[in-house]
């Protein structure tokens, strides 16, 4: 209450409050002006959780600008430990919300003046979670529509994922549970992964810039895919993944982006623009493993197919060969048979021709024979004629010749007759021969004791020779 103060000065002094008086006066005015709890909406800034259990933050206008800028209008808010339990129940029921910096909230509480700080502040007792989540959803939907209009939603998904994406660029908070889950899942597969981690902030004011820088870094590295993973959290924690800048960066990224952002309900904008999205870091790693596993299975299948096809081709070739072999054999046999038939035909023709030729020869021979006979006949006639003529001529000449011959014969006969031994024998001559019949004409031809036969006209005389005394050269007779 205003009271009469010091009267040191003589003049009338304007009523003056002490600080406590004024604070109390303000408190009364505030209480009268806002007798009921009020709803207020704004964005949380500078939230702190004291050891006492109380939570303090500042509410600023949701359109106050970028985090870190100095807002024109603020409202200090206190959530006392005694009220926190009820608020937490509401937050937990929503399942997707936490009170953190940057989160737009609609809260209820009573306004009061806090004398110790000289400020009017809101003592928070209630929170409208629907408001926050709705705003997030609305904001996300607007962004998605804009991205879709620009054709950016499926840009990253259109990039081909390598058949064996073993080189993985990993954007996460290195050392976090999310990081461990992701890396462990890859390692368990047994494939030769090459993970290049880039440590980034995944929530809070710096998250967006950090993730954008990480994406830029990995885009220049030789990686097959980029994975962005983060552990589970309230949807409000994941607001950064609903941000436009990151969505555009991923859409423009030339590497397929896989996400494993732990969440239960809605997808974030980042999930929608990524090549593939998974519910958790473990699921994201498993997705990569399944691609490699699928490739290995495909390889095995192709191997089997190659083998099957190759053997089928070989089988077909074998059948083709068999067919050709059969055709060669068949054609050769047929040709031989045909040749045999041809030879038979030729032989038949030859026989026929030969027979014809034979007939002709015989005829020719016959003709020749006839000719020979005719000639011979003619010749015989001539000869006969000649012979007849000769006979005739002989017959004509014969009597004379015979007479002459007879005469001559008689003459010869007479002459021969004159020399006849018979006549000579008759005239007393004899003929002596040895026993061997040899004519004895010289005594030398006879040896003593030789038996001699002497023919005389009246018969033969047999005699034995005696040696006659030999006449010596002097004329004497020797013995």
């Amino acid at each position, binding site marked *: 209450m205003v009271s009469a103060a010091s009267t040191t000065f003589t003049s009338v002094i304007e009523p003056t409050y002490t600080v406590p008086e004024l604070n109390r006066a303000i408190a009364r005015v505030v209480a009268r002006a806002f007798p009921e709890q009020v709803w207020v909406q704004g964005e949380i800034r500078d939230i702190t959780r004291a050891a006492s259990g109380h939570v303090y933050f500042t509410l600023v206008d949701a359109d106050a600008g970028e985090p870190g800028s100095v807002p024109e209008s603020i409202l200090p808010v206190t959530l006392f430990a005694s009220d926190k339990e009820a608020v937490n129940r509401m937050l937990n029921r929503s399942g997707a919300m936490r009170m953190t910096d940057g989160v737009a909230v609609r809260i209820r509480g009573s306004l009061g003046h806090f004398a110790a700080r000289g400020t009017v502040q809101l003592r928070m007792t209630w929170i409208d979670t629907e408001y926050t989540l709705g705003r997030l959803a609305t904001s996300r939907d607007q962004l998605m529509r804009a991205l879709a209009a620009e054709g950016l939603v499926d840009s990253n998904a259109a990039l081909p994922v390598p058949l064996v994406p073993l080189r993985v660029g990993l954007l996460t908070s290195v050392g976090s549970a999310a990081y461990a889950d992701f890396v462990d899942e890859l390692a368990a597969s047994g494939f030769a992964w090459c993970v290049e981690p880039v440590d980034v902030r995944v929530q809070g004011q710096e998250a967006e810039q950090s993730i954008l820088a990480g994406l830029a870094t990995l885009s220049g590295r030789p990686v097959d895919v980029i994975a962005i993973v983060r552990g589970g959290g309230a949807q409000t924690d994941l607001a950064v993944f609903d941000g436009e800048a990151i969505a555009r960066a991923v859409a423009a990224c030339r590497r397929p982006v896989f996400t494993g952002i732990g969440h239960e309900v809605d997808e974030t904008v980042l999930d929608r623009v990524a090549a593939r999205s998974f519910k958790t870091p473990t699921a994201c790693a498993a997705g990569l493993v399944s691609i490699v596993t699928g490739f*290995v299975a495909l390889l*095995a299948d192709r*191997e089997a197919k190659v*083998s099957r096809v*190759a*053997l089928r081709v*070989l089988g077909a*070739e*074998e059948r*083709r*060969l068999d067919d*050709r*072999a059969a*055709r*060669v*054999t068949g*054609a*050769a046999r*047929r*040709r*031989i048979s*045909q*040749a045999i038939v041809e030879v038979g035909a030729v032989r038949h023709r030859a026989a026929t021709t030969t027979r014809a030729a034979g007939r002709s020869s015989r005829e020719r021979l016959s003709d020749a024979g006839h000719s020979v006979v005719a000639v011979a006949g003619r010749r015989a006639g001539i000869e006969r004629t000649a012979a007849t003529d000769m006979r005739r001529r002989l017959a004509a000449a014969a009597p004379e010749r015979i007479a002459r011959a007879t005469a001559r014969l008689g003459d010869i006969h007479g002459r021969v007759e004159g020399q006849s031994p018979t006549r000579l024998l008759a005239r007393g001559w004899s003929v002596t021969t040895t026993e061997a019949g040899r004519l004895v004409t010289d005594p030398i031809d006879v040896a003593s004791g030789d038996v001699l036969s002497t023919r005389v006209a009246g018969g033969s005389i047999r005699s034995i020779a005696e040696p006659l005394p030999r006449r010596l050269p002097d004329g004497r007779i020797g013995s």
Partner: protein
Amino acid sequence: MSEPASYRDAMEELQSIVGDLERDDVDIDVLSTKVRRAFELIEFCRSRISATELEISQVVAALEREDPD
């Protein structure tokens, strides 16, 4: 006679011989030569098929040894 340069060459030559033989006017003097050559080619092709079959089975076996699954 010379060995064919390839399976394809062998098959082409074989086809040509089969075509000749099937014309039924092949000279008997060369018939046996052609048939002998045809069977040489068939033998060559068969040996190539067998060798290829063996190679394939070896490759497949090697792959199966590398990946027992």
